[in-house]
């Protein structure tokens, strides 16, 4: 008993869990079984700490075809017989240790989650966090991660269309790599990871099983330490070419109607894909490890079951259709082996030839994991006091402040990054990366898909509840800015060690904020990913919730874009103006201060802003639109001018609209719920009236004019100068990736 218990502990099982397993089995579990329980009960697979908290997410909605937790990814109905499948997954720990392969396999994993549901993946996005870009280590990570993401997506032929990249010293040594994939399918081709039908054959398809990635799920459930590079064998190596073959073969199998269940082998490999498919269908399963194709000699049952070798799928095929399935696998030169059968009951029987390697109840393995009610302890929030606010110096040169923000890597153009991604393949990308949201046409319909991936680390660090609200509200606004109707979200929650009460409190409050925002904005949660233990020797990273939101434009000809269109158009600002400077990029870049208060959020007004934008886009009253976020109004104005194909500038008018606020808050405050619009002069009144009808304050603040941003006696910058700073920030720090 003692020895087995020691093994159990080294596999991350608690004494309590060990006793429970032994009790149910009526005997001591063997080492293979302990390995299976260890990995299935790990935080990564069982959501032991997060499950009680995630319950507050709203998961109901009339469009939801598959709800959170029911499939590998969420599925929503978008009309015309089509459904969208989408999900986010993190690959933070592997990317910290081996950036290229870590990021590449993260992309590979999320793509599999989407096509296992029967959908053709049509878009990839990613949300990345790194330390200071000036540091050589960060530069190496950026090159590796961007290279790895590009490598996988480019070879797969799935465009990487958007996302975000943020730099902050909190992520030094623990970068965050969250990848999102969106797929589209005919609603009737929805496929489940649900094994059914006694005697149906279980097929293993794809790459051989090796020792790579052994115990990756357990690796992801620990803090990063100096010794983490010794975990490099826990990082897998990606083969996107093989995955491309798997994708095409699996979609062909689904169209042929021979598939009962499909699941990818991701975290916890074979043990997770088999047992969870069985659990979902309420059946048992019997597999034989001797039949599993291997790439290494002398692998033990433990190693075969837990290997996380990439590009492998588990399929349950309709009995009698084995030959049709085999023909399709052969067409795509794929190795497919029948490794077992679906059985009656709750028994998961793992044979190794004639010997029993493991024999455990499916339910105990998949649903028996302990759930922890973690302790949460509130952390006092550092804020800029009223006195500090009054004493905050007003810079003498606002133009120089804007220059520094445009050159700050978090705000600057990410062209250096996304030009390394094929963002056009499949010829759907109507609005390319670099906009508020990416927009893709949906061929065969009049509709377009708008999708964004946005997170809020600093806000959440300073106020987890508002950070949660803002993560959702910002994504919502990104879609609204394109004229899309936001429909649903997926999320990636990146936090520190949940056993620390302060970290768990951040997690809990953040989820509560996100849940509240999703409820009011009517964008239910379809699924997501929790990544804990994002810590390095210096402590936890800023808690970073990432939201991936999808929306639909009913008319692909009515897409709104960021760039100013024509001289003489009026510039309008919708939303409240407040003296909010806390948590801003301005405070951080100019004063080196990371302090709240985080801007307040009014959810009904965010919802009204979404409705207003739909209304205006539908009536064709708006010529350009851009939501205000990092860097506030000044950066938004600069971006609209820089992205104007004609280089159109703006002249801000003096007047009552400033409400007597200081230029710091006016120009650089990051108040929520605001949108910058331009319209033809003759439509000014109609737009302002529409805003008022939706209960939102709006005013004219200037006019499209010249080739510069001009606020008389305050700020003057030419569009060309700003473009140089904004577009060149990465190249100045990282060197050229290409000439022009």
């Amino acid at each position, binding site marked *: 008993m003692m020895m087995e218990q020691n093994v159990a502990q080294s596999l991350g099982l608690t004494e309590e869990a060990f006793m429970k397993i032994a009790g149910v089995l009526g005997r001591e579990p063997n080492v293979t079984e302990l390995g299976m329980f260890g990995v299935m009960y790990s935080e990564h697979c069982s959501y032991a700490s997060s499950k009680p908290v995630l319950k507050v997410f709203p998961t109901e909605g009339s469009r939801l075809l598959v709800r959170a937790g029911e499939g590998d990814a969420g599925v929503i109905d978008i009309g015309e017989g089509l459904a969208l499948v989408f999900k986010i997954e993190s690959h933070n720990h592997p990317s910290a240790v081996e950036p290229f392969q870590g990021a590449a396999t993260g992309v590979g994993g999320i793509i599999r989650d989407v096509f296992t549901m029967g959908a053709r993946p049509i878009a990839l996005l990613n949300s990345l966090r790194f330390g200071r870009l000036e540091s050589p280590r960060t530069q190496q990570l950026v090159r590796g991660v961007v290279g790895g993401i590009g490598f996988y997506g480019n070879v797969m032929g799935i465009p990487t269309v958007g996302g975000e990249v943020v730099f902050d010293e909190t992520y030094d040594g623990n970068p965050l790599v969250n990848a999102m994939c969106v797929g589209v399918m005919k609603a009737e081709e929805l496929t489940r990871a649900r094994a059914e039908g006694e005697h149906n054959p279980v097929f293993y398809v794809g790459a051989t099983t090796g020792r790579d990635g052994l115990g990756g799920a357990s690796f992801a459930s620990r803090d990063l330490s100096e010794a983490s590079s010794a975990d490099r064998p826990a990082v897998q190596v990606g*083969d996107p070419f093989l995955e491309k073959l798997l994708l095409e073969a699996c979609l062909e199998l689904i169209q042929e109607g021979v598939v009962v269940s499909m699941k990818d082998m991701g975290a916890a490999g074979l043990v997770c894909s088999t047992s969870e498919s069985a659990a979902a269908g309420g059946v048992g399963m019997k597999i034989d490890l001797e039949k599993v194709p291997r790439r290494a000699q002398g692998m033990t049952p433990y190693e075969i079951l837990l290997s996380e070798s990439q590009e492998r799928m588990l399929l349950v095929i309709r009995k009698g259709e084995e030959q049709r399935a085999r023909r399709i696998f052969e*067409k795509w030169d794929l190795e497919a082996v029948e490794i077992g059968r679906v059985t009656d009951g709750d028994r998961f029987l793992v044979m190794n030839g004639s010997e029993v390697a493991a024999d455990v109840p499916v339910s105990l393995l998949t649903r028996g994991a302990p759930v922890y009610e973690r302790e949460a302890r509130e952390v006092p929030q550092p804020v800029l006091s009223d006195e500090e606010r009054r004493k905050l110096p007003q810079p003498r040169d606002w133009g120089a402040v804007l220059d520094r923000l445009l050159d700050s890597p978090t705000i600057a153009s990410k062209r250096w990054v996304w030009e390394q991604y094929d963002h056009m*393949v499949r*010829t759907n990308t109507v609005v390319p990366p670099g906009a508020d949201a990416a927009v893709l046409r949906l061929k065969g319909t009049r509709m377009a898909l708008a999708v964004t991936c946005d997170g809020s680390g600093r806000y959440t660090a300073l106020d987890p509840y508002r950070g949660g609200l803002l993560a959702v509200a910002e994504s919502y606004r990104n879609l609204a800015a394109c004229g899309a109707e936001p429909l649903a979200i997926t999320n990636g929650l990146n936090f520190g060690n949940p056993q620390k009460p302060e970290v768990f409190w951040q997690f809990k409050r953040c989820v509560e904020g996100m849940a509240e925002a999703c409820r009011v904005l009517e964008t239910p949660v379809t699924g997501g990913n929790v990544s804990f233990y994002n810590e390095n020797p210096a402590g936890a990273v800023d808690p970073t919730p990432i939201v991936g939101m999808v929306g639909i434009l009913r008319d692909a000809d009515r897409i709104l874009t960021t760039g100013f269109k024509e001289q003489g158009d009026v510039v309008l600002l919708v939303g409240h103006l407040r003296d909010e400077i806390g948590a801003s990029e301005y405070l951080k870049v100019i004063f080196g201060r990371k302090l709240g208060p985080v801007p307040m959020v009014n959810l009904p007004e965010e919802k009204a802003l979404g409705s207003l934008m739909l209304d205006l886009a539908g009536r064709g009253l708006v010529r350009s639109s851009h939501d205000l976020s990092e860097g506030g109004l000044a950066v938004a104005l600069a971006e609209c001018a820089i992205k104007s194909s004609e280089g159109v500038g703006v002249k801000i008018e003096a007047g009552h609209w400033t409400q007597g606020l200081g230029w710091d808050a006016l120009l650089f405050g990051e108040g929520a719920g605001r949108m910058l619009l331009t319209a033809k002069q003759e439509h000014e009144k109609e737009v302002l009236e529409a805003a008022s009808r939706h209960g939102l304050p709006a005013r004219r603040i200037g006019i499209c004019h010249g080739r510069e941003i001009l606020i008389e006696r305050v700020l003057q910058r030419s569009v060309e100068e700003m473009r140089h700073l904004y577009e060149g920030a990465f190249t100045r720090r990282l060197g*050229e990736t290409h*000439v022009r």
Partner: protein
Amino acid sequence: MKFGVIVFPGTKCDHDCLQVLREVLGQEARPVWHKETGLAGFDCLVLPGGFSYGDYLRTGAIARFSPVMETVIQYAERGGAVIGICNGFQILLEAGLLPGAMLRNRTLSFICRDVTLRVDNAQTLFSSLYRAGEVIRMPIAHGEGNYYADSETLARLLGRRQIVLRYASPEGELTERDNPNGSLASIAGIVNERGNVLGLMPHPERASEAALGGEDGRRLFESLIHSLKT
């Protein structure tokens, strides 16, 4: 006209080419699986972009041994029209249907963006609807598009006017600044001596509809349709 779009394992622009040929240009087009042989009845074969066999050895190096390539070579030798785009161009080089070779981009990174191109020969099957010297816009998306050939080959290409497209400034000048991948003589697209086989790195199928931001690529396909009809 009837187009065959060849699909190797790892080809990724097959759907895009088929859609442009069928939906935008109203032509007949079907995918041709790389294991097919004895192709008949096609007016043009298109080798689309992608990463055939993952391009793990060298771009196009494995695809050229696919069963279908023997037929493609015979088809080209009989004078049939063949277009190789991006990876398709790389495969045509490996198969010896076009001269030269590809190196990694000068910057060693994958590049996806619009480029401006100068039409150097507007008298080929594939370029007759452009004006000589015209500057057009198309996207590139590749990691190995740095065209190379020895000096004799280059002299032949120049002498026989086999260079169809070159990376150029919006004003039509050949500068290093406008040469995204470091190609020899800014070469973006060439034809064989007989003029029936075209290889190009830019993606005309991605520049065939206004909704995607450009239509200059469509005229390449239209040129061929026009040339073969008359």
